[in-house]
């Protein structure tokens, strides 16, 4: 059963004989994660509209249900019954496939976020349900956080193919922008994740959470804030949220890649976008803010539930930050976007990764600390100098040659 354990065995529960109880527990976890994901997305849409309305001095949704809570449900029902248009020039198969390519990866990221469990004082976050040991996490695959990168690279296809298969100009422009943007920012995203992996020494998300024992060990502090800032920016770009929403810049592209979509197919893109916001917040919390690790012990609540409470609290903070960014920041210009991605974020994340690696090596090998720090500063300054020189030369060349297109 070794192979089947390694195929299914993303969870300690599925080692050994798969009897009914473990299977039911896994099934229950799947259903709960799915349901919680949908409800959370629904609430997120409401929260975003309400918060932005507040920032814009408007009232926002207030008719359906108390405080307009059921507004999303009403919108969703409307989308279900709306006529589903298929453009004449569309590539039928790909047009139908694209919404699912956007939606499914957004959902799957949920599976690697540790949603609870007691990680305090070096415990491993395992819980026992009905006599079976498992994690409060759908799957704990050996590739762990790499699954996030894999899924976000699949999500590119959803947007790209949606734009292309619509068979019209504006969606195509939107999707070409999207693919360029997402591919560019994926590098910075991956490099800042690499810094976290370097410190945690493991790819598994539960291991990463377990490494962030108390507040000073949270990776946001122990990696020196820079990877967190880079990850936050790159994740925002990866999700195509404002200020990086060039993909669907209404003023320029009508509606971007989803212009030709209507009905529930549009609804799936919409859902995917908001679900990505939640899952990315969850990933940020997992990677940098200790996931279910609490700042202090909440009295009266058992450890595993306490983790879930902390996780939700932290995620809500990031959701608010995302809404806030959307309400306050103007959209980037396309060249600014590319400059930020390629000339600032990628070199910065690469440089910081090298720096952390050197510091780690110096600690392990017991090198002279002063010499190491001095050498690092010199090398960093040298790199920044060379980079800015290269930028200046290329800019001068561009200006001399004039616009290429």
């Amino acid at each position, binding site marked *: 059963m070794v192979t089947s354990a390694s195929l299914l065995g993303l969870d*300690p529960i599925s080692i050994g004989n798969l009897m009914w109880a473990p299977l039911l527990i896994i099934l229950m976890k799947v259903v709960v994660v799915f349901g919680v994901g949908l409800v959370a997305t629904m609430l997120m849409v409401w929260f975003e509209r309400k918060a932005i309305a507040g920032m814009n001095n408007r009232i926002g949704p207030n008719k359906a249900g108390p405080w307009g809570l059921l507004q999303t449900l009403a919108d969703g029902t409307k989308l279900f019954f709306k006529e589903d248009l298929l453009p004449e020039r569309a590539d039928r198969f790909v047009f139908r496939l694209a919404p699912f390519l956007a939606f499914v990866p957004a959902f799957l990221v949920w599976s690697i976020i540790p949603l609870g469990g007691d990680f305090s004082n070096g415990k491993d976050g395992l819980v026992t349900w009905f006599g079976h040991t498992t994690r409060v996490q759908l799957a704990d695959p*050996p590739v762990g956080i790499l699954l996030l990168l894999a899924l976000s*690279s699949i999500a590119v296809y959803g947007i790209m193919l949606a734009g292309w298969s619509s068979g019209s100009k504006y969606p195509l422009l939107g999707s070409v922008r999207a693919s360029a943007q997402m591919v560019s920012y994926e590098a910075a995203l991956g490099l800042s994740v690499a810094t976290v992996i370097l410190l945690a020494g493991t790819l598994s998300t539960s291991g990463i959470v377990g490494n962030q024992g108390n507040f000073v060990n949270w990776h946001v502090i122990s990696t020196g804030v820079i990877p967190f800032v880079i990850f936050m920016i790159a994740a925002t770009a990866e999700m195509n949220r404002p200020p990086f929403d060039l993909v669907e810049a209404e003023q320029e592209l009508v509606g971007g890649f989803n212009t030709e979509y209507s009905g529930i197919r549009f609804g799936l893109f919409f859902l995917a976008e908001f679900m990505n916001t939640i899952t990315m917040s969850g990933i940020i919390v997992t990677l940098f803010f200790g996931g279910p690790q609490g700042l202090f012990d909440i009295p009266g609540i058992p450890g595993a539930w306490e983790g879930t409470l902390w996780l939700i609290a932290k995620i809500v903070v990031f959701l608010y930050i995302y809404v806030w960014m959307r309400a306050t920041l103007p959209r980037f210009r396309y060249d600014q976007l590319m400059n930020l991605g390629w000339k600032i974020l990628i070199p910065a994340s690469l440089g910081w990764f090298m720096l952390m690696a050197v510091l780690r090596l110096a600690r392990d090998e017991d090198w002279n600390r002063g010499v190491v720090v001095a050498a690092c500063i010199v090398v960093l300054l040298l790199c920044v100098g060379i980079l800015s020189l290269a930028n200046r030369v290329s800019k001068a060349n561009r200006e001399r040659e004039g616009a290429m297109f």
Partner: protein
Amino acid sequence: MELFVFVVAAAMILAGAIGVVVRSHPVHAALSLILTLFGVAVMFVAQEAHFLAAVQVIVYAGAIVVLFLFVIMLLGVDRTEDIKTEPFKVQRPLAVIVGLGVIGLVTAAVVASRDVVSSRGSGLVTPDMADPDSNIRQLSRSVFGDYVVAFEVTSVLLVVAVVGTVLLTRRVKPVVKEAS
């Protein structure tokens, strides 16, 4: 279980590979290629090479085929090609010969190494659930330890390719006097 996974993944790989050749639309061909790459990733997981599976998806499906599609869309060659006409006459017979040759070589290799393949498991360090990161550790030992020179040379090769591409795209325009 293993057989079932193998059959499904092999069917995916073959269907994708046939699709790449048969589909006349470049975008459809590229999508079929993704199917093949996913099948290979599933094979990697079945062989407990989890890290390779992830890299397969991230790098090949996530970056390389996206670039293919990007170029297809940007150049506007996304229309159906007529695959009946043949630009080079020798191409098809040559493809048949090369294909048969590859099949022959692979079969010969399998037959020749039958003894080694059948006695699997002995001497192989298989990663287990207890240490999910053993995959990466082994891989990095060989990439950055045993084969570090080859690795570095490959990366230099890639940098050369990038620099060359940039150089080729930047053709020097004749200097125009007036500034507009």
